[in-house]
């Protein structure tokens, strides 16, 4: 089924079209939710709520930009709304890094690198993780993030800086970033870190 057929059918509240659209985009969208959520159950709740909004507001899609991008924005806003119900992003968090993580590579089960990165992102405190997701991955500006999370733009910047630093530390110690940078031939960056 093409995107156009899915859209047309979803506008008519056709279950088969909705199922097709959900099946196509839900794996990636659940990945988006998983980066925001505390656990898989919360991520699925966000996904469910997000797709209900997608199908309810499908008539507002104007064919401006990709359908996936439109769905993704709805999902992200849904995730933020869910988090805002439970947490206050206006609190600034001063962070100290863990002194040692103590990774034993040979004891870590074999997983895809993408999942490792996502898991490392999820290790961050909620405020840092949310800002990092919105800025670095979803592409929102600090101003937009400030409006979404009801925080100051400067707070968003500082939290992002700290989150990035903490995440880099974790990733490097997992040697993932190092491998990626080897591919990019960015040796000075590794030395700086």
């Amino acid at each position, binding site marked *: 089924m093409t995107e156009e057929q899915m859209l047309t059918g979803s506008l008519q*509240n056709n*279950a088969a079209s*909705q*199922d097709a659209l*959900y099946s196509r985009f*839900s*794996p*990636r969208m*659940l*990945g*988006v939710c*998983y*980066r925001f959520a*505390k*656990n*898989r159950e919360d*991520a*699925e709740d966000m*996904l*469910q709520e997000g*797709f*209900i909004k997608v*199908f*309810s507001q499908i008539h507002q899609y104007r064919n401006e930009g990709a359908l996936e991008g439109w769905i993704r924005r709805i999902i992200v806003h849904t995730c933020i709304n869910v988090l805002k119900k439970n947490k206050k992003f206006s609190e600034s*968090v*001063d*962070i*100290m*890094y*863990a002194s*040692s*993580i*103590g*990774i*034993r590579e040979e*004891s*870590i*089960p074999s997983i*895809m*690198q*993408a999942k490792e*990165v*996502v*898991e490392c992102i999820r*290790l961050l*405190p909620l405020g840092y993780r949310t800002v*990092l997701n919105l800025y*670095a*991955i979803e592409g929102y500006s600090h101003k937009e993030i400030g409006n979404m999370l009801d925080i100051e733009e400067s707070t968003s910047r500082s939290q992002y800086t700290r989150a*990035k630093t903490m995440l*880099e530390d*974790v990733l490097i110690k997992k040697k993932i*970033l190092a491998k*990626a*940078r080897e591919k*990019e031939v*960015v040796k*000075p*960056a590794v030395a*700086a870190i």
Partner: protein
Amino acid sequence: MENKYNIENFERFLREKSDEFRMYPSKRVWYSIYNNMHPGNRLPSISMCIILIFALLLVGYLNTDTSRELSSNLHDSNVVAVTLSNGPLDETAVLTKNIVGANQIQLSNQQLNSRVKHSPGKIASSTVPNRKTGRNLPNNNIAYTAGTDVQETSPGNTSRTVPGINELNEAATKIAIGSVANIEMAEPGSITTAVTQSNRNNFKEVDEATTFVTPYDHHDITAVATNKHVTGMKNIETALLENSTDENTNSPGKNKIADKIDLMPLDNSIKTDETIIIDTGAAKNKVENNNNNLPALSETDKAWIENFALYNRPAPKKWAGKVSWQAYITPSVVYRKLHNNAAGKFPGSNTGNFNNTNVEDVVNNKPSIGLETGIALQYDLLKRVKLKVGVQLNYTRYNAHAFENYHPITTSLAMNSVNYEAVYEVFETTPFSNLAGLTPVRLHNESYQISLPVGADFKMAAFNNIEWYIGGTIQPTIVVYGKSYMISADRRNYAQNKTMLSRFNLNAGLETYISFKTSNYTWQVGPQFRTQIFSTNNKLYSVEERLQNYGFKIGVSKKL
């Protein structure tokens, strides 16, 4: 510049990796979305519930004791007990008649040693009597009444008087169903009239409808109540009449029934095609006073008569006295038992990221309150054994003493690999430390559960209304909500991870209690011990936790 480039590369790296990442949601998510978008199509689940409820009701109805129908079949003056003679106990028989149609009565004949009396009114035979015909009625199709002497009409239209019995004060009667013979009624329904109108004075108390409902399974009676009035009966014992092989039962002597009335079948060999006409016209009011010859009604007999086998009284359910429901509540104290469950010894020394010290030695746990409440059905399987099944809600809680810091730190939980060959870490951030920190706190580990206890109780002793029981149950359990703080691999911190909580578990309970009966209810009190069989958390987590509840159970039950 370089720094900006590095940052951009880093962000691009994050975006690429995030875009590569996929997760596949469970079916539950789509079903929820579908039900939300298509609420009208939710009916299948509701209709299934209705179908299941209807099926349960149907099964219950089909398995309901249908003896009530039999009782009602004996209603409306359908049943008349015919006593044949006024002879000694061992020389008479009782017949029961059941009117099944407008013109026909089915006569059941008993192989009995008992007194038999005619029902009031004429009883006539249109053919040569052959009492050896008949067929068996169901055991509960017995009815009898006292009667008076009746006028018997032979085929030659000669009649004779058959003495009857109509007094109370007779010994309890036992009666069993035997064979039947067809009897033609002269007038449909007239037996009742005949009994009430023409012979009323012969009965101690007779009401309009002389309907007699039968006991089940051979009960001793002294009289049969009709509309709460009582007429007299005699003791009847089930036995074969020794000399009932001769079809010609008119011969006098051995068979006194034959002496009295031709239509009395005496054994099981009554032919079904034998018809006996009963003329239910006015009968002679010959009262035979048997009071002097019969023992007085005992209290037991009177009680039975008053409570048993009236028309319109529903048939008792066989299980009614054996099933009872119980409601109970058990406040308790909850303890936690921990022990290491690592696949192997942790690498490195205990000062690193892994600590092999026994977890019980490094944590500070305190018991807390718990509560169980539920309802159960109990079935008296044997005199001393009861089976029980129920539904129970549980609340468990225990406290871990810890310290809270201003900032969260990264820690790890030690997990066993799926094949239990190695240990790996799962990282979490937490503000709670086990050994030292800024502010002491209590971490409340709690859970809400639903259990289905199944078990048995054994009666150890009884004294009057007080009984002592010992019981046990197995309780499959579903954890509806739980909060559990888990000790880290280095034993320094507590971290929370909801995905680690096991949804299903199994508990075992052991209890002893004293029960005492009041007028309507039975109360039970006594201690109870309940232990969790499987670990609270995921079986791959390297620390096993089992909860134990010590409580005091208070329950109340009532027979259905």
